[in-house]
């Protein structure tokens, strides 16, 4: 979605460490995502998947290690600077700009995140609205939307910043089968424009449909990394994540 794409990996974590007291979120964690890759991230509750996103987006600082996004070391940058470099995110608990309309939510993101001029931002907002299926709600106040539409707005607002790397935090929860299919096709459409996507999701059916690769986070390290089908039948993953008895 960004016009300029840098050679090399889209996103790299190098020896990232983060702990809260005794809880270890990231223990010497490293990973690489190629441009345009769609990576699913799973793990048991409390494994620190959301915290991992906070580290990448800059909402929380790492204890040590390095994060490179879209060709730049972003470890010391603030969230707004990382967003302008192409890192966008959705929040697990939606944070809409409640007293602004849906279209204004996207417009402000297009102007400041994507750096568009106001006239260009308007047509881009229309594109994002139709991509995310929010045209009918465009003039409604974001604060008046029901939860599922708010989650859709989280996705749309992140997309409006024209990201190179998109972090999606549990946006499929609570959806019906038909709605999941709908969401999956939206995410495919975003991925087809060359956006690298990291998707944390409990609805595994949605994830395995689109992910090129699945990573499993547990105890601050990756316990599995590979194609969705292979990861799901991995005995270690089965034991820790699904609680299977051997």
């Amino acid at each position, binding site marked *: 979605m960004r016009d300029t794409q840098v050679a090399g990996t889209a996103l790299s974590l190098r020896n990232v460490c983060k702990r809260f007291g005794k809880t270890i979120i990231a223990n010497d964690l490293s990973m690489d995502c190629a441009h345009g890759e769609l990576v699913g991230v799973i793990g048991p509750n409390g494994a620190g998947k959301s915290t991992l996103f906070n580290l990448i987006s800059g909402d929380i600082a790492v204890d040590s290690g390095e994060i490179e996004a879209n060709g730049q070391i972003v470890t010391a940058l603030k969230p*707004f600077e990382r967003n302008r470099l192409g890192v966008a995110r959705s*929040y697990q608990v939606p944070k809409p*700009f*409640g007293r602004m309309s849906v279209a*204004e939510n996207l417009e402000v993101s297009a102007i*400041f995140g994507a750096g568009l001029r106001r006239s260009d931002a308007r047509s881009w907002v229309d594109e994002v609205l139709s991509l995310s299926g929010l045209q009918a709600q465009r003039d409604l106040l974001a604060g008046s939307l029901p939860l599922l539409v708010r989650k859709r707005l989280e996705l749309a607002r992140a997309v409006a910043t024209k990201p190179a790397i998109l972090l999606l935090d549990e946006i499929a929860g609570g959806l019906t089968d038909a709605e999941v299919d709908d969401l999956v096709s939206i995410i495919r459409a975003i991925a087809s424009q060359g956006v690298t996507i990291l998707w944390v999701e409990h609805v595994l059916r949605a994830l395995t449909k689109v992910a090129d690769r699945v990573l499993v986070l547990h105890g601050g390290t990756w316990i599995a990394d590979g194609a969705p089908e292979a990861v799901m039948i991995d005995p270690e993953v089965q034991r820790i994540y699904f609680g299977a008895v051997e």
Partner: protein
Amino acid sequence: MHHKSFFAIIIVSVTIAIFAPMFLGRGDVRLLTEIFLVLTLAQLWNLLAGYGGLVSVGQHAFVGAGAYAFFVLCAQFGVHVAPALLFAGFVSGCLAIGIYALVSRLVGPYFSIGTWVVAEIVFLAVLQTNYVGGASGFSLPLSSIREFGAAATTREYVIYATAGIMCFGVLSGNFLFLRSRFGLALTAIRDDVAAAHSVGINSDRIKFILFTSVAVLTGLVGSIIFVQNLRVSPSAAFSMQEWTATIILIVVIGGIGRFEGPLVGAMFYFALRELLAPFGSVYIIVTGIVAILIIIVFPDGLSGNIAAISRRWLRAVRPL
């Protein structure tokens, strides 16, 4: 509100304001001047606190700084009143940069208390400075007063016009600002700071610009207020009750974080004050009680709840 209807209302109001002094007595012109100035302060504070989330309770520092800067320039350096007025805004802005460096690290209520403490320090510093007359202050020299007009009526009309230009200028500027890209960013910050950061908005920078520009305009208003009084003293120029508490009261009654809030609040406040004028200082007590009742009954302020009620009423009359 649409651009066209807003500016139509502004043009009509300005036209009325231009011709109003012909039909009003001098007392009424003075009252209108005061309304213009207080309404300007209320609009500025609403922008700062209601939109920017910078709940400053130390705005009297900038009113006083502007007034003193203006008086010193006129009385001690013999500067003409027009450039002195602009320089007063500049001094107030410089003070804001210093204050912001101190208080910007404080969050929420700590920020508010910080602005209050710093404002008191500025007040005490001026109080101790003999150069500006210490506690008793000093008067504007006759030569400066004459620069506003030789006759008293001309002078009052010039001050009235200056206040009107400030008020309508800030009102229009506020309207356009909130619809600009920075206004959108400010509204986003008001609604959710973390989310605003996540879409590329630099809230620190926007808040700094907001705090400083509001201070510049507050200083300008401060100097005009004391031109009308012809005399400046620390307790009057740095009065927290008049330049901060009353302003907060007006904005909260009218509806904080809403464009129409200060307008509705100021109309209500001045109507109440004039109504209770014959009873002396009782008006402060009554205004306080009324304010508390309004906050309890209309938590969104008069403008917010009137908007909601009228929408409901319109639906009831004409079901669609």
